[in-house]
């Protein structure tokens, strides 16, 4: 059952893209900014998880939680320091700032610890179980479990809690949200916190799954998660989930049929196709609205 095996691999990879893509899409939804530093928050999450597990010797779940918390704080700091003052500036100014923040994070990490890669410690025995003839590693199951739990949690926050409703209100119409008494600044910070926490979680499970992390590891997954967010329809939370999974599966299929050198190109071919054929993405809304 080769195809089932590949499908599971694709979904594992896609889950990581989806977790990162959620942060892109939520931030875009609320302040219309493509936060290109998001991939670097993912990298920081991977390193925080690494130090937590390898140096402080704590287990996988506590390391995951610490990484998510610290990334949430980092995300809020980035927003408050770099983006907040640009809220009324042109979009291109904010975009360039985001790229600047991205480079700043990457090279700050290199400055302090060097550019050499790090080998992620093994946190769980890599056993395989066999289902319908496909051997599925315990790590794939872990990735899937973490992703599903986080996505359910996110859905709950966005749809059932007060802050989630505030987030949806602000992303729809910030001034109308102000008139409800919603504190728009705090809501934007909360969005960065949640998106960055998800990127942090993605960083830790990426490290465990691929075992090798380095300060520039966030660049390519960050770009691909951006493609995933566009594919799903930027601004749409279900879109980011589906876009991530589709992208992961497509990449895995491209590798599986023997074109592994084209793996990275596949994502960008998808980006080009989606921009030509359906720029609003799978779940994208048309800008039309009833007045």
């Amino acid at each position, binding site marked *: 059952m080769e195809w089932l095996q590949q499908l599971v691999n694709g979904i594992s990879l896609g889950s990581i893209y989806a977790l990162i893509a959620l942060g892109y899409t939520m931030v875009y939804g609320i302040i219309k900014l493509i936060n290109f530093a998001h991939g670097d928050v993912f990298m920081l999450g991977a390193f925080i998880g690494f130090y937590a597990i390898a140096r402080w010797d704590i287990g996988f779940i506590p390391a995951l939680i610490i990484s998510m918390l610290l990334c949430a704080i980092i995300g809020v700091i980035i927003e408050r320091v770099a983006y907040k003052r640009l809220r009324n500036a042109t979009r291109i100014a904010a975009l360039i700032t985001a790229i600047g923040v991205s480079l700043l994070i990457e090279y700050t990490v290199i400055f302090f610890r060097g550019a050499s890669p790090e080998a992620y410690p093994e946190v769980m025995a890599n056993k395989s179980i066999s289902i319908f003839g496909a051997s599925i590693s315990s790590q794939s199951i872990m990735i899937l479990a973490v992703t599903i739990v986080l996505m359910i949690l996110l859905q709950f926050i966005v749809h059932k809690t007060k802050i989630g*409703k505030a987030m949806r*209100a602000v992303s729809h119409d910030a001034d*109308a949200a102000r*008139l*409800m008494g*919603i504190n728009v600044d705090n809501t934007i910070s909360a969005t960065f916190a949640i998106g960055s926490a998800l990127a942090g979680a993605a960083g830790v499970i990426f490290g465990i799954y691929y075992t090798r992390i380095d300060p520039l590891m966030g660049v390519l997954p960050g770009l691909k998660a951006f493609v995933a967010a566009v594919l799903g329809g930027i601004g749409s939370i279900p879109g980011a989930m589906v876009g991530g999974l589709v992208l992961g599966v497509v990449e895995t299929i491209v590798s599986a049929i023997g074109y592994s050198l084209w793996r990275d190109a596949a994502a960008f071919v998808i980006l080009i196709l989606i921009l030509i054929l359906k720029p609003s993405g799978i779940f994208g809304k048309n800008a039309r*609205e*009833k*007045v």
Partner: protein
Amino acid sequence: MLKVNNIDVFYGNIHALKDISLEVIEGEIVTLIGANGAGKSTLLKTLSGLLKPKHGNILYFTQQIAGKPAQTIVKSGISHVPEGRRVFSNMSVEENLELGAYLRNDRDGIKKDMDYVYELFPILDERRKQLSGTLSGGEQQMLAMGRALMAKPKLLLMDEPSMGLAPLVVKKIFEIIKAVNSQGTTVLLVEQNANMALSIADRAYVLETGKIVLSGTAKELQESEQVKAAYLGGL
């Protein structure tokens, strides 16, 4: 309850409101009439904290609210029904109403006020689970009003509630404004439909290019030749 003293508001370089003073007394319906671009919406946005005046002050009871953030102003009891309704069209009717009560934590009170809003607008009750973007214009206006009432305002600011609505619906909306007012909510109503507005108001101000040019009781203005010529369709 509300006293605006000599405020000046700028939109970038445009001097949108020039030395405006007005007063709203508790229990009244006060209307602000004027043509497009006279500065009516700007004034309401300044009162609700979306814009900051450059000079002047706004006294609400004993509190200075000029330049305060919108959430402070909502909390102190001023709700603003914005021009064009601005309902959250990606959310259900019920969620919109819940957002109206965003700053409140009294579950029972919120429940009670939601029932009151549904009683006021039975059509919203029928559509509570429906996405608000699928409502008709009149229903959206009702939702925007209901949403503002969920904050339990003492003062309701209404910006062009009649805009784009059929005459029968406008009549209905104005009846409800009167009903809400008789329950004790003070109303400051901005309208281009001067006839309608003056028919339910106690007092009125006429705004022209950022300045108040006339004020008085609604009856006086209805009979004023100047207002008749400019806003009530002549003769």
